[in-house]
């Protein structure tokens, strides 16, 4: 993690712009976002900038958030569902400083939620924006490494190869073994990577009243799912999509409906299960 103390003092002297990025850059990102919203699931290339945070640590999400955030917003940042994980803390502090924005851990109070790897358990509402940090935006990348080819496949809706990978998974394991970053079809047109959220969260993307924005900094792509857009997880008729289940419930709040993290609590390997969404869990206790 970079030493953030240097930008801190310089921001105080007014050397950096509001929300870090200069206004030209923000406008460029907003144009990309508008295009992304207009073509749901399509990956829009944008002139991603170096951010004071390493690539792969949320630079795409931060640029999207920086382009849309204003002083009236209330920001929540989560990583692995939790508000207090190191990277979430770092990003929240960054915006509290450079955008003088109010922060919250409460899902309902937030207007902008930047997330890595989870969708909050509390259902989102109209007017909220969920900003995903995306490491590899291209859902076909592991099947076809060439950008020129994947671009063509998307343009022509030539998605046989994605279904082939699911077929292969069943042939090999007896069921679709993909557990996170589970590919989805957006609005019946583009196959999209939902970012590495567990497939447990995929159903929350479908027809969500909130706006979903996805930012990939290193790969310089932005894509979006506008409110109320159909998002379907790929599957077979005789092997329908299904989500994870736990036989345990949360050790802290007793929830049986939320995504549970497993913790090893002693040397003998004793397991404890707790909600991954810390805000949801605290609200229930």
């Amino acid at each position, binding site marked *: *993690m*970079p*030493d953030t103390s240097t930008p801190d003092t310089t921001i105080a002297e007014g050397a950096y712009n509001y929300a870090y990025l200069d206004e030209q850059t923000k406008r460029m990102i907003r144009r990309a976002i508008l295009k992304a919203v207009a073509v749901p699931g399509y990956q829009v290339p944008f002139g991603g900038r*170096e951010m004071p945070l390493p*690539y792969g*640590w949320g630079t795409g999400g931060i640029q999207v958030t920086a382009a849309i955030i204003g002083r009236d917003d209330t920001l929540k940042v989560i990583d692995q569902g939790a508000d207090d994980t190191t990277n979430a803390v770092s990003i929240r502090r960054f915006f509290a400083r450079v955008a003088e924005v109010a922060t919250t851990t409460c899902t309902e109070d937030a207007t902008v939620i930047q997330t890595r790897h989870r969708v909050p358990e509390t259902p989102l509402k109209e007017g909220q924006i969920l900003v995903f940090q995306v490491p590899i935006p291209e859902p076909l990348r592991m099947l076809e490494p060439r950008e020129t080819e994947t671009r063509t496949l998307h343009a022509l809706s030539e998605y046989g190869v994605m279904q082939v990978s699911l077929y292969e998974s069943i042939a090999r394991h007896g069921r679709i073994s993909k557990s996170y970053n589970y590919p989805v079809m957006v609005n019946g047109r583009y196959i999209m990577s939902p970012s590495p959220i567990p497939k447990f969260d995929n159903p929350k993307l479908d027809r969500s009243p909130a706006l979903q924005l996805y930012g990939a900094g*290193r790969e310089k792509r932005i894509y979006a799912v506008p409110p109320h857009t159909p998002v379907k997880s790929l599957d077979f008729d005789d092997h329908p999509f299904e989500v994870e289940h736990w036989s345990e419930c949360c050790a802290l709040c007793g929830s049986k409906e939320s995504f549970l*993290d497993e913790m090893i609590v002693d040397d003998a390997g004793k397991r404890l299960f707790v909600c991954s969404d810390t805000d949801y869990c605290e609200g229930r206790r």
Partner: protein
Amino acid sequence: MYVAVKGGETAIAHSLDLIADRRRGDRGLAELTLEQIDHQLGLAVDRVMTEGSCYDRRLAALAIKQARGDLIEAIFLLRAYRTTLPRFGDSQPLDTAKMVPERRISAAFKDVPGGQVLGPTYDYTHRLLDFSLAIAADRPEAPTAPADTARTLPHVGDILAREGLLEPPPATPDGRPDDLTRQPLSLPADRPLRLQNLARGDEGFLLALGYSTQRGYGNNHPFVGEIRYGHVPVAFLPEELGFAIEIAEIDVTECDMVNQFAGSQDVPPQFTRGYGLTFGHAERKAIAMALVDRALRARELAESADSPAQDEEFVLAHSDNVEASGFVQHLKLPHYVDFQSELVVVRALRADVEARRQRAAEERAVLGQAAE
């Protein structure tokens, strides 16, 4: 647990304090000055400026100090600063024929107009540790001839090109080339875009790729037509003024590679070009860049292109060490949600296998009984 469910904020603050403390090291020693880094670790400054694509010795020295000598981290710091700077405009193209050379050699010719100038180089040192450097002492100054700033130094390539032996500089598309620091890399890329990418590219990555072409993975029979390192003026044309003014003088290293000839029975054979340019003095990077530039022209020159160094998407997508370093190290970030999903799936799959085994055993048992 490194990801505390609570208390992350305090832990991070402590971590920041610690890195600042370790950076300073033993308080009994004098603190490094930026001038010391600039003057005594000048080649590190050169590399950070080149791959950080920002010519500012003082900022590069600061980045090296802040990064405790981790050059990739320093490059990152400089880039992240550079990206926030406003743009006034573009400088005029550098004219390296106007260079006042510190060093200039050709490996293709024994002598060239302007002469071979060895300059400061490790090439002729014996790599024996010089223990006299272990203690501070007065060091004699090297005698230098006065630089001839009036004369221009023709490029060896231009002399060959006049005879038609070397291809003219490869045609570049009309109009302003894309700016990689403002626009995403678009593929297939043209040469200006590729050269930008390589100039910012990681020295180690380019070195390995260049080396691989020499070992037969896309060999392009290179000769160093010329390497020059020295000072060149930077000119800027303010619109309101209408003519260019010199705004600075910078040091650059340039490598003109003369490569494998192309031609046929109808087209007279010509040598082809590869090009490398860096800030400061960085010959290894400049040569490697020229090798990779030439390798990436394989398709344009109708050569087979099946080696890694000739694969444009592969090379350009992986050359940037700031991107690579971030993504490789992001594996340190918590991934326990995804891992939990994997655990659930693997347990389910294991249960499936176990159930199948059990069923098979029961069937065998039933069959066995039936047989009896």
